[in-house]
């Protein structure tokens, strides 16, 4: 079985395998990593957070489910949920197919992004984290 995971540079990652991507307008996109989707395998259900809700870093904001398992989704940064990826309601497999692109889960308007990002990992640190988990 292939154990290679895509971990793009330029994103920030949590220990629970969420990613954060900074957008030019100051908001961030969040989702779950390639490692997370491969561990879950066939994703069949996504519970999205509610648009407009305020979340604190590492609050549980939803869930990603495969046939076999439920994985809680945590807010990687504090802020307000300004948009959710409603395409996932009908096509949760988008997370399997494109975890960093079409499989994004929510857009957050962060309250204190710089402080929150210091608590997250960059791609290099996350690669080491995944390597440690895989063994």
């Amino acid at each position, binding site marked *: 079985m292939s154990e290679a995971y895509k971990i793009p540079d330029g994103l920030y990652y949590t220990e629970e395998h969420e990613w954060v991507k900074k957008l030019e307008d100051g908001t961030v996109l969040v989702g779950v990593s390639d490692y997370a989707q491969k561990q879950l395998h066939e994703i069949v*259900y996504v519970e999205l957070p509610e648009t407009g809700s305020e979340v604190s870093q590492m609050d549980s904001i939803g869930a990603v489910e495969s046939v076999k398992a439920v994985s809680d989704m945590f807010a990687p940064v504090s802020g307000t949920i300004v948009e959710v990826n409603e395409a996932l309601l009908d096509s949760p497999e988008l997370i399997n197919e494109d975890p960093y692109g079409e499989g994004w889960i929510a857009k957050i308007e962060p309250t204190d992004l710089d402080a929150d990002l210091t608590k997250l990992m960059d791609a290099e640190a996350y690669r080491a984290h995944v390597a440690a988990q895989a063994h």
Partner: protein
Amino acid sequence: MKRTHLYAYHKEHGKIVDFGGFAMPVWFEGVFPEHHAVRNAVGIFDTSHMGRAMAEGPDAERFLNYMVTNNVAALEPMNGLYTVMCNPRGGIVDDLIVYKLAADRFFIVYNASNREKDFAWFKGHSEGFDVSLRDVSDEVAMVAVQGPRAEETLQKICSEPVSEIGRFELAQVKLCGFDALMARTGYTGEDGFEFFLLDTPLGSPEKALEVWNALLEAGEEFGIKPCGLGARDSLRLEAGLCLYGNDIDDETNPLEARLRWVVKFKKPGGFIGREALLKVREEGVKRTRVGIMMEERGIPRHGYEIWDGDERIGVVTSGGLSPTLGVGIAMGYVPPAYRKLGTSVKIKIRNRLAKGKIVKSHPFYDESKYGWKRDRK
């Protein structure tokens, strides 16, 4: 972790997980494709982690009949039956299949998670019976071939006419030239077979690997897939079959589990748990196993609560997304008042209550479209 005869194949092709202490494949390609292969064509499962024992001797039949609730004395040679065995409180020690090989020889197949417990339970009750018990789990490989094309697939490697084996019948055959016992049984709801490769010790599993690979080749034209525990679980759930440890356990009796049909109160000699179960029958069950189908988004899971209005009425014991039906389905226990088909209930999924209803669960699917009965006219 313990390994089965087919571990070398699993390690190369599957995603391995720890299942009750065994290194087993949860999937090879994925739960969905494997599940659909079994419902529509054929799939094979390594079930060598299950417990297998021989009971031999002049008292073997009388002994087993005292241990289990179903009537072993009614078995013809080379036939098997599904049963449970109970503790004196009426709780289920395990569910199992007992095959009668000859008047004084029986073959028993039980759950992987209960291998030690069951064998000790048998041993512990055998005093006073002229019966010898032998755990042959590590000397016999076990594989399930399941699905509407199972018969055609197996026939290609089997010495005997497979079509002549009826449900729960057993035949002595040769598979790829090796001695095997073949039964028309399974845990998927589909037609299919479970076979036992004899004299195949864990330490020299070549025969098992050869037969496994021969099956994959024989079934290639039908789209055969090797299947893991994930599909095994989703298939048995759709078929409404209990999983020991989830839906039945030491604290659950067969009457509330709706396994009344395997309890033969009138058989001669009695059985362990009979008095307790008679009392349950007299007083009525306090809860009953039901099937639930979701009417709103959400996947019910083991341990989720079942609600009616603001009252918590029970717990889900098995649940998941049905790959065949495309909705969440569950089994769980509720008070008998909720048993009626169509009754509305709610399942607590994280912080919300999702609507569902009580449905026929044995099986959940339409039997004219899926399952072993569909081909019967």
